[in-house]
């Protein structure tokens, strides 16, 4: 069976002050029906541009190559009308900041039913009935009252739940969640992660979860992609990816995070910072920051090559990586 979303060799360039800037290079990824897939990396690594490509939200002047197929449709060839059919009903999105994603002057009910009335051509009464169901599904207490509330009357966690309910309004098959819990407290984050997992189990929703937090990646997703400077540098089942990384960048990210388990005082920062678009070195983009770099790393960007079952890595050195239990 073909995956629900199948992206192959996707490249994206955006217009820059001195000519086109390459943002994504040769990105391939897939999401199956009902699968929770994680996309990890630092800011500027291309995670959010990938999401924007999949929703047709790239800025004017962006150029794409490669393919992105969603349930048989070629996304990159869509016109405006085609995108309108995909957005909401096929692929929906939840953003990092629910306060910015919700309209401050419209009630939650209005924002929830708008989609259903336009996209699903529902009448007011049945749209309201479904809105109540959705709010109940995302565990917002007293849904009838919540319909009449404005976003500012909700807490951050409630707003993100409402944003998820709105994203689900037109029954999408894939939800792209771009750092949806980054602005929230851990306790609230735990609730949102549980909610997404429940939606997957109950409705077969597929989720592409974008995050920089490897703990979240591990807690929620079954398969993960690590992005660096617009490329996928490592991919595989999340458990093995994070407990036995094969790319030095994945290992470095793990070392830089507080583990919250045993040892204390062992944050290991990654020296330097990621390259800006267009300023990546000719070879492996991580090479200038990599402690295992060898002269061969400067030749060409290493391709993503299989290592063991279901895993791939873009590294020619493949050093032995020591990773403490975290």
């Amino acid at each position, binding site marked *: 069976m073909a995956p629900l979303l199948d992206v192959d060799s996707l490249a994206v360039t955006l217009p820059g002050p001195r000519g086109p800037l390459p943002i994504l290079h040769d990105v391939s990824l897939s999401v199956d029906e009902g699968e929770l897939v994680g996309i990890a990396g*630092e800011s500027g690594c291309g995670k959010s541009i990938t999401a924007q490509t999949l929703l047709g939200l790239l800025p004017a002047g962006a150029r794409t190559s490669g393919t992105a197929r969603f349930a048989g449709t070629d996304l990159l060839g869509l016109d405006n009308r085609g995108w309108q059919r995909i957005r909401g009903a096929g692929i929906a999105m939840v953003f990092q900041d629910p306060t910015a994603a919700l309209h401050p002057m419209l009630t939650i009910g209005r924002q929830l039913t708008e989609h259903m009335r336009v996209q699903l051509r529902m009448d007011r009464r049945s749209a309201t009935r479904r809105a109540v169901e959705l709010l109940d599904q995302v565990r917002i207490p007293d849904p009838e009252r919540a319909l009449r509330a404005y976003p500012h009357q909700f*807490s951050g966690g409630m707003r993100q739940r409402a944003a998820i309910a709105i994203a689900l309004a037109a029954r999408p098959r894939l939800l792209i969640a771009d750092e949806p819990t980054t602005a929230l407290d851990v*306790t609230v984050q735990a609730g949102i992660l549980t909610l997404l997992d429940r939606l997957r189990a109950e409705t077969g929703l597929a989720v592409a979860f974008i995050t*920089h937090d490897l703990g979240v990646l*591990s807690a929620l997703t079954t398969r993960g992609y690590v992005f660096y400077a617009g490329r996928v540098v490592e991919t595989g089942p999340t458990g093995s990816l994070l*407990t036995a990384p094969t790319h030095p960048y994945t290992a470095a990210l*793990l070392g830089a995070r*507080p*583990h919250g388990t045993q040892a204390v005082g062992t944050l290991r920062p990654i020296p330097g910072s990621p390259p800006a678009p267009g300023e990546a070195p000719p070879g492996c983009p991580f090479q200038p920051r990599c402690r295992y770099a060898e002269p061969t790393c400067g030749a060409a960007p290493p391709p993503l090559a299989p290592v063991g079952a279901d895993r791939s890595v873009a590294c020619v050195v493949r050093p032995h990586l020591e990773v403490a239990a*975290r």
Partner: protein
Amino acid sequence: MTGLLDISDVEVEYRSRGRGRVLAVAGVSLDVASGQIVGLVGESGCGKSSLARAAVGLTPPSAGVVRFAGQPVTPLGWRRRPDTEIGLQMVFQNPYASLNPRRTIGAQLLDGVPAALNAAARRDRVRELLDRVGMPATAAERYPHQFSGGQRQRLAIARALAPQPRMIIADEPVTALDASSQAQVVNLLVGLVRDLDMGMLFISHDLALVHEIADVTAVMYLGRIVESAPTRELWRNPRHPYTRALIDAVPRIGPTPRLPATLAGEVPDPANAPTGCRFRPRCPHAFAPCGDQPPTLDLGGRSAACWLNDPTMATATVPAN
């Protein structure tokens, strides 16, 4: 023992027309000694930042007193700060807002360097400060927009270090930063505290990060400190159900996906705080005595405000993991 910074029974109250009187900090006592890092954790809205602002004198406390090096901290006004209080400096969450975009880094650092020195010595100090935070001397001629978020936070730390403080209050200093610059900035702050024998109050909602660096951790809930203990003991054996809930909500890396434990309910509005123990409505262990506000019990080198720790009340203890 009284510490370098001694916060005692501080309350911070805000008045607003819509909500009336809101007690954001409802009686907090906390000590920070020289060379010590105290972590303060809690969910948003629990009063962490209000406490930080009261501790440096940005907000006048409505009750209680903050002492720095034995002297009460005077709320900031139009007058010049007393010399001793210049030793108390703050690092804010957003490095984009805490540096002036229209002045060079060097000029901003010079503001903090003691005026008693001559011009050449002051310029040397700027170079030293930049070097301390791992920035090149050329950064002095540049403007804030020419730096990344992590670099700006390091420059903001250099600015806080300029008057040679003895104590730093850092309010969510790395929350706005990426994983790799987060580690750089945290290691810088910890290194400075150790090298210069400063004290630091490190405020964060990231429990795992505080666990990594703090000697002592205090957990705040709805304006009160519910538990305070040496960090490792707090993590290993929390004595307040809220601390346990926070620790269990941290997502962990493991071979199979495992969702973090969720805590029921939301943080209540501090304007309508529950009576008795403020955590009671969300607490899985709430029992009859919780209708009364629990006192902060001394548990030998640590403390917690929970009736479960009172042998005369408790029939059960906080269950282990």
